[in-house]
């Protein structure tokens, strides 16, 4: 049976790993390579690294550091940030990533999703959607364009239609807060998509993952809990198991 995944999702900034709060203030949480090594040793199900320098500053994608991170990962690695062309995807995959995640380019050009999933397969293309709750409704947020009058679920359905393999759904209001996932948000997505949803933003305690999965998430991503609390990925899986959510068992 397919297991629900627990995925650390960290940001790369100035050659350091960082954690944001509501996408604004950043705190350094460590060295990327040693962190990747620790996550690998802890048998996390997957790792997502978003290069925010590449994404914000129109910098080139830092393949050097992706190679170093990938060298430590014998689990799946998803890389995002600054991917704008098919060549960028080749570069990131050749550096050792297994999947890529795109945000702005997908939002600006649905055909890019089609083009990239045709070449690399849908399973390789994770589309990221950032969501903000404004005027009593969920809206899509983009770092460059701000709050957009786009419904996140409709956007996700479009992404699916154009060939996205997974949706990384992040609540900006909850991100970095540790107050739990945005359960209303995931509820509105439950059973609506044919592709998996990774819910991100807000996990503060292991039971938050249980609530997210029960309400429609296929996988959960988090950073805050792993860096600012005593909880480890194993604690989360243990709590999930207690609640009859099957997770990966590891033979040690």
């Amino acid at each position, binding site marked *: 049976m397919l297991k629900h995944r627990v995925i650390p999702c960290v940001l790369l900034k100035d050659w350091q790993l960082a954690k944001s709060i509501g996408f604004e203030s950043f705190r350094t949480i460590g060295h990327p390579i040693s962190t990747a090594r620790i996550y690998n040793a802890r048998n996390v199900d997957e790792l997502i690294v978003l290069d925010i320098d590449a994404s914000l500053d129109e910098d080139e994608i830092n393949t050097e550091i992706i190679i170093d991170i990938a060298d430590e990962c*014998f689990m799946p690695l998803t890389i995002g940030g600054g991917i704008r062309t098919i060549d960028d995807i080749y570069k990131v995959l050749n550096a050792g990533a297994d999947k890529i995640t795109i945000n702005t380019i997908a939002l600006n050009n649905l055909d890019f999703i089609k083009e990239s999933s045709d070449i690399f397969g849908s399973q390789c293309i994770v589309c990221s959607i950032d969501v903000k709750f404004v005027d009593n409704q969920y809206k899509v947020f983009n770092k460059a364009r701000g709050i957009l009058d786009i419904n996140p679920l409709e956007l996700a359905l479009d992404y699916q239609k154009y060939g996205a393999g997974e949706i990384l759904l992040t609540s900006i209001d909850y991100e970095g807060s540790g107050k739990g996932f945005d359960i209303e948000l995931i509820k509105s997505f439950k059973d609506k998509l044919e592709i998996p949803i990774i819910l991100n933003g807000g996990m503060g305690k292991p039971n938050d993952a249980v609530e997210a999965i029960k309400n429609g998430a296929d996988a959960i991503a988090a950073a805050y809990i792993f860096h600012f609390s005593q909880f480890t990925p194993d604690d989360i899986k243990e709590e999930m198991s207690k609640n009859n959510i099957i997770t990966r068992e590891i033979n040690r």
Partner: protein
Amino acid sequence: MSNNQIVIIDYNMGNLRSVQKAFEKVECDVVISNNHAVIKTADKIVLPGVGAFKDGMKNLAKLGLIDILNKEVTENKKPFLGVCLGMQLIANKSYEKGESKGLAWVDAEVVKFNFSNSDKKLKIPHVGWNNVNYKNDNKLLKDIPNNSDFYFVHSYYFKTNEDIVTSTTDYGIDFVSSIKKNNIYAFQFHPEKSQQVGLQIIENFKNLKKN
């Protein structure tokens, strides 16, 4: 050069570095190449791959690799390891992006998961960790407990009537997750991304004796 050199076929279908470093982790003499001379002298061949079937075959053809792979694997019987797309490509044909022909080393076809008529609408792609249930003996699964979790990421699966299936995995249906036919070994999941149990497969391939 060692007498156990492994070549990872470079045909522009991603994911090569991850496979290479898994071999490096178990201390293999491994190169990534599409050079015919290198493939000819290598002792073992690995065909990894992420992407669509049609593009995979197109790229193999463009690089002139189809004939040499046929020769080295089916005639010279070099141990062969296919991973994910590299497993699917050894089938007769796939229906991904329209019907296209594969290497046809086994009588098999590659079809998309379809849950439209089943009660439970499972997500596609099948992505994440899932159990591998052993069916027949496979030397590459030696020292790995039955039902271990491996990492999968695919929308199409391998269907065969040949008696070559060494494991199946349950995702709505019991699909073929590994096969062995003579010197040909292939896995739908990613050993290079499956941590300890995956590295064990890589090590087992390294230790495989040539026929």
